[in-house]
């Protein structure tokens, strides 16, 4: 059941109960009050009627008249001319319940008996032919003869008043119920609207749209709930994005790794099979052996980098003091044996740093190789080393090569990420170098910084802890 229905139902029940109880007491009270007033009036009237009839009869006896039933009726009728507010109906009985006169129809002997058995001077109610009557009864003795006089007063007006009050109350109650229900409906819709918004948003989030948020700006509990909900959605979105990124990186790693592994393997397998099966001519055999050799080298280099990468995840490194000038010269000398066209210029300030020399060699060699791949226009790679103000030592590798497109800079340190996959492979690149560099530097509590502009050049730098 919807909340607004519950609200409306609840209000109907509560208001109806409260209204009917209060109405019942009001109407009852009014009614009793009216009855009381009327009975006071009527009892006086009844006494007056009795007294006058009695005095008429006494006067008749004094005048020496014979008191017969017809004479009493005559007195009774003449009485009506003297008094106002006569009882509407009247009856006379003897002590033996013998009716002398009655204009009360449908009143039976039994009724009379029950009425007479009541306390004298009280009254009772009787409904005769759709009319309500208040009935009074009195008796007196004249000449050893007991006479009962019964007066009935029409009190329809009181009942009519009660009915009128009831109908007025009914109408007002219906109006009150309707108005309060409409109000409650509007209020509950106003109240539950944010809840249905929340509901809709959570369904959207559940169906995978993690960037959905609720827009509720009330300062009550629901507003607080919405704020917490948004906070939760934010956290979930972040987590999901992070997981997705991890999955993508893992996938990329596997894809990259597969590709880097499968290409040389295909070549090695193919040439080996060729040599194994056929007696090839000298030239072909030589070519095949060359290919097998170089592709194996490629696999070896890949496996070396991978092993380094994996060993780094253990986080075990051998830290030592390194004299930076000697260290870089040694690395560059080894590198110079491999490359021909490109000159490496050094501008190194003397300093001692604290780090793992084996790993830092991997870093610098990788960065030099990358600079070579960038094909610097002046064929020069500059390596700069300088002390910084905050007791660090900064090493920069600068080339004037083709640069890295802006959109790729943030991703080049991901595993197997290649800006131009096909080009990179022309240089035997595997896309794993920079990710290795980043991981090594992170172990030195440092990080790789890349500043690059397309067709102008690239500067890669990092800072290491200096030993005084």
């Amino acid at each position: 059941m919807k909340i607004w229905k519950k609200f409306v139902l609840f209000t109907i029940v509560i208001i109806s109960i409260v209204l009917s109880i209060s109405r019942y007491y009001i109407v009852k009270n009014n009614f009793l009050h009216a009855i009381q007033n009327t009975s006071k009036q009527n009892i006086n009237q009844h006494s007056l009627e009795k007294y006058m009839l009695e005095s008429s009869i006494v006067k008749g006896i004094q005048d020496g008249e014979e008191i017969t039933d017809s004479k009493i009726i005559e007195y009774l009728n003449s009485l009506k001319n003297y008094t106002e507010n006569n009882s509407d109906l009247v009856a006379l009985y003897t002590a033996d319940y013998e009716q002398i006169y009655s204009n009360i129809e449908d009143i039976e002997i039994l009724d009379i008996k029950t009425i007479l058995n009541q306390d004298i001077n009280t009254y009772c109610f009787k409904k005769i032919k759709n009319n309500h009557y208040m009935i009074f009864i009195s008796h007196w003795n004249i000449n050893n003869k007991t006479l009962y006089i019964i007066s009935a007063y029409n009190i329809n007006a009181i009942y009519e008043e009660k009915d009128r009050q009831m109908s007025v109350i009914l109408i007002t109650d219906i109006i009150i119920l309707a108005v309060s229900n409409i109000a409650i409906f509007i209020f509950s819709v106003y109240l539950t609207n944010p809840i249905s918004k929340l509901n809709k948003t959570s369904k959207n989030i559940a169906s995978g749209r993690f960037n959905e948020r609720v827009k509720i700006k009330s300062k009550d509990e629901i507003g607080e709930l919405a704020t917490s909900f948004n906070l939760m959605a934010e956290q979930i979105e972040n987590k999901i994005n992070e997981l997705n990124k991890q999955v993508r990186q893992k996938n990329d790693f596997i894809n990259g790794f597969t590709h880097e592994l499968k290409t040389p393997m295909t070549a090695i397998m193919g040439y080996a099979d060729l040599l194994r099966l056929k007696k090839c001519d000298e030239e072909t055999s030589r070519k095949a052996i060359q290919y097998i050799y170089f592709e194996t080298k490629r696999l070896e280099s890949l496996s070396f980098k991978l092993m380094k990468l994996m060993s780094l995840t253990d986080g075990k490194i051998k830290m030592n003091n390194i004299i930076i000038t000697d260290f870089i010269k040694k690395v560059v000398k080894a590198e110079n044996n491999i490359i021909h066209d490109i000159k490496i210029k050094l501008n190194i300030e003397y300093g001692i740093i604290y780090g793992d020399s084996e790993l830092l060699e991997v870093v610098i060699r990788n960065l030099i190789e990358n600079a070579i791949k960038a094909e610097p226009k002046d064929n020069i790679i500059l390596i700069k080393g300088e002390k910084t103000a905050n007791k660090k030592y900064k090493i920069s590798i600068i080339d004037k090569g083709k640069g890295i497109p802006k959109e790729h800079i943030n991703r080049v340190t991901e595993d197997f990420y290649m800006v131009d996959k096909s080009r990179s492979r022309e240089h035997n690149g595997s896309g794993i170098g920079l990710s290795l560099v980043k991981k090594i530097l992170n172990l030195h509590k440092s990080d790789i910084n890349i500043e690059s502009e397309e067709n102008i050049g690239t500067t890669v730098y990092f800072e290491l802890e200096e030993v005084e």
Partner: protein
Amino acid sequence: MNRILIVEDEIAISDLIKIELESKGYKCIVANDGETASNYIEKDKYDLILLDIMIPKVDGYELLKYIKQISETPTIFITAKNQIDDKIKGLNLGADDYITKPFEIRELIARIEAVLRRYNKGNEIQKIDDIEINIVSRIVRKNGFEVSLTPKEFDLLVLLVQNKNFALYRETIFEKVWGEDLEFETRTLDLHIQRLRKKLNLKEKIKTVYKIGYMLEI
């Protein structure tokens, strides 16, 4: 002679495919990137294109779309990715078949032959002098008369024919015909060679190469 365009940026692999295919009598042209390949395709007609997906300049899928727009040249793509999606993408773009790296060159050749057969370009029937070999129905005729060969004799004959004028090592012949699991028995091989020579009158053509093995010389 069937002309095959090899689009592959790894020179080691393109060279390998070229050596193998040329020994089987195909004419091979190599393009090392997508741009060169599209120029070649524009200028010349080829019987089949062998296409690596990861190539420089123009991506293999793009090239495939281009090939299918301008010609109906059968195409086999080479991919290092083992992902179903990549294979489906290639096949949906109109490629006739695919092969994933690392592949054995024999498998590649079998796929090339299968695709060519489908386009009725294949050398289903190979001829050496008066001998006709139908590779599909595995029927051999000499002078038009059917010669009955055992399955192993037939496989041996096909291997020799496909590598004609190359000396094949005994061990590898045995391995290719009888399978890698069986232990090499030189007598079994020698016996089958003798029977082939006799049945098809190839005494002169199937030569014994000293210390190496056998060679079909045409």
